[in-house]
């Protein structure tokens, strides 16, 4: 049986699905029996999900224009 500290040590690999099957089973057995660790697992997973769901903002047009201007000058100079 994993301790709560063992669970935390394995949490990243479990969330990233990079644990071996035996550790995975032990993590799942732990969170089935430890309500606090289940909440930690669940809210950490949701934390990652909300960041992954964040829509990328479009780069401001004036920033993009200045970038292209700087590149055009560089290319015009021969790029060195």
């Amino acid at each position: 049986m994993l301790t709560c500290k063992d669970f935390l040590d394995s949490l990243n690999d479990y969330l990233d699905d990079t644990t071996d099957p035996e550790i995975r089973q032990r993590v799942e057995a732990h969170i089935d029996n430890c309500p606090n660790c289940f909440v930690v697992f669940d809210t950490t997973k949701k934390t990652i999900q909300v960041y992954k769901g964040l829509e990328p903002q479009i780069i401001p047009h004036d920033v993009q224009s200045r970038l292209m201007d700087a590149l055009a000058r560089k290319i015009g100079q021969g790029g060195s």
Partner: protein
Amino acid sequence: MTAVSSGTTVEVYDIVVDMASSAALDNFDDPLLVERARHRDAPAFTELVRRYSTRIFHLARHITQHQEDAEDVLQETFLKAYSHLDGFEGHSKFSTWLVRIAVNESLMKLRKRKADRTVSLDEPIEGSEEPVVREIAVWDSPEQRFSGEEMRSILEGAVDGLAPIYRTVFVLRDIEELSAEETASVLDLTVAAVKTRLLRARLQLREKLTRVFKRKGEDVFAYL
């Protein structure tokens, strides 16, 4: 190129965009564009800029936490990439190579602005510091309670509150979705160090978000 180098900002931008779009380069994969850009094919490089400028800008903004610094990093990253294309050996993806340049430029900006010693990526993590979990409370579907703008503000504010050594790893792994190995390569860290920092970053963000997103009336317990 004379017209390009002497035009106004808008004219230059339009010319370069026209050059890129006219060649339908958006169907080309990165290695082919890089090969053409190596031979000073400006439209090919412009297509690479179009593909990655948004990603590099937001990466730089996350790390520097400063709009003007992020814009400087954006320009420096692509100018350096163009100048050093011959040094790109293709062992990693072009995008990972760009990210590496952008991270280094961003950290230099951060060091200059904050003179913050914690920015060093060589700095070892304090050996005795264990991840801490304090807030135990459930939360569901915060996007139903907060507008998109509010969510962005909450999430970006939480990331900005992380120390740079944790913030950088979190941004690369969980926002840019680089693998642990790619992140380790970009930051010159071991994979184990990346995993340690990522766990702390994730748990610190979980704490911050739980304080905002937890349901009213939920008890909060001490833990570990």
